[in-house]
């Protein structure tokens, strides 16, 4: 009897965890902080378009694109994601080129096109963790940024300041030498 009730509780919690619904996903209510590949449609549209073929990951030269299993719900099974701390996006734009359904729209590999259309997320600096803000000149995030002086600029002691142009590729978070990282990319849907 105890085992049965344990199993029932287990199944119920698994079912609850597995069914947040696309609306909840779109609202970013999952505790997992993940990015979609560059050029991805807004979350709800993205799920409607993505056919889970895996080509974006197979074409990614940086191997930053990974695939969900059932972590954030069965609606998002086999959809691509990027965890910037593990591997950032180098904005090569190959995933949008190969995507058959334009769930990831094709964007030219061109600064203006990327600035105008890519919106994976936005980097935020935690000044209480950032070495430069603690007086230890660092500047690693600025040097990792593919859009230096556009998306991020540095002030005194290489203190980073993120501008509105940041597209959220995550290379700064990947490179941050602090642990926990002082600069993190937050996906737009969670904003």
């Amino acid at each position, binding site marked *: 009897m105890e085992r049965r009730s344990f199993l029932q509780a287990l199944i119920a919690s698994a079912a609850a965890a597995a069914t947040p619904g696309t609306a909840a996903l779109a609202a970013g209510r999952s505790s997992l902080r993940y990015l979609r590949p560059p050029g991805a449609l807004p979350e709800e549209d993205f*799920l*409607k378009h993505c056919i889970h073929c895996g*080509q974006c990951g197979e074409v990614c*030269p940086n191997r930053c694109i990974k695939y969900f299993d059932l972590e954030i719900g069965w609606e998002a099974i086999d959809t691509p994601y990027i965890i910037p701390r593990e591997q950032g996006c180098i904005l090569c734009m190959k995933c949008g080129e*190969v995507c058959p359904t334009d769930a990831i729209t094709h964007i030219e590999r061109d600064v203006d096109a990327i600035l105008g259309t890519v919106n994976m997320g936005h980097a935020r600096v935690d000044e209480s963790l950032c070495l430069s803000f603690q007086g230890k000149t660092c500047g690693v995030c600025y040097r990792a940024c593919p859009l230096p002086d556009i998306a991020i600029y540095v002030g005194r002691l290489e203190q980073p300041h993120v501008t509105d142009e940041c597209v959220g590729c995550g290379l700064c978070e990947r490179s941050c030498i602090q642990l926990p990282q002082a600069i993190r990319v937050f996906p737009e849907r969670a904003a």
Partner: protein
Amino acid sequence: MISPTFTASPGARTRPFFLWRHLNKLRWLILTIVFAMLVLLPLLHIYQTYVAAHAYDLLSPGETRLYDVMEWIAAPFVSDPAADLDAVKGNTWSGSFWGYKISDPLAAVGQAAAGLSLYWPFLLTALVPVALTMVFGRFFCGWSCPATFLYELNSNFASWLRWAGIRVGNRRFDKRIKYGVLALGLILSAVSGSVLAGAIYPPAIIGREIYYTIAQGGFGVGTVFFLGTLLFDILVARRGFCRYLCPGGALYSALGRYRILRIRRVAESCNDCAKCNVVCEFDLDPMRDGFGQECNNCTACIAICPTDALTFTLRPSDYPEQGPGHLGQRYRAARQAREDTVRDVAP
């Protein structure tokens, strides 16, 4: 007088083109190549990332071996592996070949259901498979599905088990169940707003899971599902998932209902041995002209026929049932009876 329909002698019957009985070998070759490509493409992808990262000196011995082997394979075809190997990507669910994209019709239908709209740039990528299916029927299931490769090996494994005296499942269900599964998959896609039809479709699962296993560090829940279908095929019904449950098989069957190219029986050559019915993975009835929309033109029946009584024909529907084969017991007994009556009446 002997009636004219009975005059064809066994020696005078027309034989089908000799190559048709070897098509089954060609089919196995194609299935093997498709499966091998699904394994090779993720390995090539890993090789590409090593090249792109200029990482050769950082690789472990195993990775170096992979690099060397992939370089050996790719070198004759590409000059810049990191860029040129992007030409072929994907799997049978959706793939790109030198910029030309081709997708499974189920992906197109499932995406239209999930989005509740028609996105033509994507739907058109399924145009060629749909056109081919309307000509060749459910050929994808027999000739290119990477799951078929494993399912047929699984069927062979089950027949070994049977030979060893272990009971394997051979239950029969209604083949129309899979149309219900297709409808259910599309409804679920529409309700959830996510293309879920691909989550229960073995070829899509195989393509993804091989890629996950090789390049993403481990397989996912799809592999568990697929292993479940293999067990179902052994324990419950031979080739049960394809016959009764596969949503893609349902879509292909429906599209191939009026296929132009189909197999037909030459009743004059048939001896009713029923080997074709036994070998048929989809539980069809070639011995009595019962092919129907489920036939995938796999040609296993042509290959096994001892009297060359099965061949191709170009017509949009099956021949109506032609009765017992002319070389078989039943037909000859009937002819003997007829001849006896004719002899009794004539003199």
